[in-house]
């Protein structure tokens, strides 16, 4: 392990961008990283076809019958396994969630995203009941503007905090560098003459990766203590 899944029934919630940014932050330090793309939209698979120099290994799987085998294979190949889940709930959901150390729910601070992220939490709660154990999950605030909070965003964030919904403190900010990365390259390969804020995006993704690592290590230690 660690196995990290990203899930939100809303398409365009920045699931794929978040996973590529995190995987890229680790791969830049020569970590072995696999991403399993189970989303029929193929966003990460498509990114990988163009980002030819990235060491991130991307495999596609849309058949739930193969998912356990694939996770097993990738976890023996890479230290970090990320899974991009479909932007709708499918028969892949429970098997993937049963394997994940952490489920990330990327969410833009908009009412529509909030409603669907709440639905994603409800699905995970159902899986907790099915599996009979807690599932670690965190909201990841995505596409937020640094140092600026709208009233709607404040309202949504207040509701999340009041309900003790776990969330990353680091946000995945809105950056043109992320958009450029999604065309099919890594952040480090982007041309600073062409795109603004590449250095800021790299710092942002590093901070997010560091928080993810801390969270995952805590979760794994907790699991070990419970097993002992």
């Amino acid at each position: 392990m660690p196995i990290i899944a990203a899930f939100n029934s809303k398409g365009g919630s920045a699931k794929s961008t978040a996973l590529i940014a995190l995987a890229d932050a680790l791969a830049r330090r020569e970590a072995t990283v696999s991403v399993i793309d189970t989303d029929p939209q193929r966003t990460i698979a498509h990114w990988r076809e163009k980002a030819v120099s990235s060491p991130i290994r991307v495999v596609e799987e849309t058949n739930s019958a193969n998912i356990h085998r694939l996770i097993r294979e990738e976890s023996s190949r890479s230290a970090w396994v990320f899974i991009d889940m479909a932007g709708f709930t499918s028969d892949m959901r429970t098997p993937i969630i049963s394997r994940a150390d952490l489920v990330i729910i990327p969410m833009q601070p908009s009412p529509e995203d909030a409603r669907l992220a709440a639905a994603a939490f409800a699905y995970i709660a159902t899986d907790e009941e099915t599996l009979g154990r807690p599932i670690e999950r965190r909201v990841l605030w995505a596409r937020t503007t640094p140092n600026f909070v709208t009233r709607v965003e404040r309202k949504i964030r207040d509701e999340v905090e009041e309900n003790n919904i776990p969330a990353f403190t680091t946000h995945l900010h809105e950056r043109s560098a992320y958009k450029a990365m999604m065309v099919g390259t890594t952040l480090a390969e982007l041309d600073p003459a062409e795109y603004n804020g590449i250095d800021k995006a790299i710092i942002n993704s590093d901070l997010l990766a560091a928080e993810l690592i801390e969270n995952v290590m805590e979760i794994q230690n907790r699991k070990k203590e419970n097993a002992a």
Partner: protein
Amino acid sequence: MTSNTFGFGGVKKPASKPADMDDINKRIEEAAKLAPQPVEGDPEEDRSLRRAAESRGDTIRQSPLEVAKKVQPKGPTKQLSTRMSIQPYNRFVLLSQHLRCPYDRAIEVLMDAAGVDEDGIPTKPLRVD
């Protein structure tokens, strides 16, 4: 707001690194050194769930998803565009998503279900409010 009296305000500023960026780097580098840790077979809870379901002749999952493939039209095609009220629009789009087929195929499915023949005549009574 920063002043721009001398034009310095427009100068592109380097990204300010948080004070503990070295620590952040160290943490990611440590994590990058992790060796792969293969997971074992299906988790026990999964297996026991499956066993329980199978003993009742039941399944706990749907059949594997099939990804909708772009269907090549057979023969000539014509454009059909329409404006719709939000409610039927949402119903139709959600139906297409559930059926996992494109809009033109979803229309065909609906027409077949309604018993509409090749001449556009319903072969069973249809109510139009």
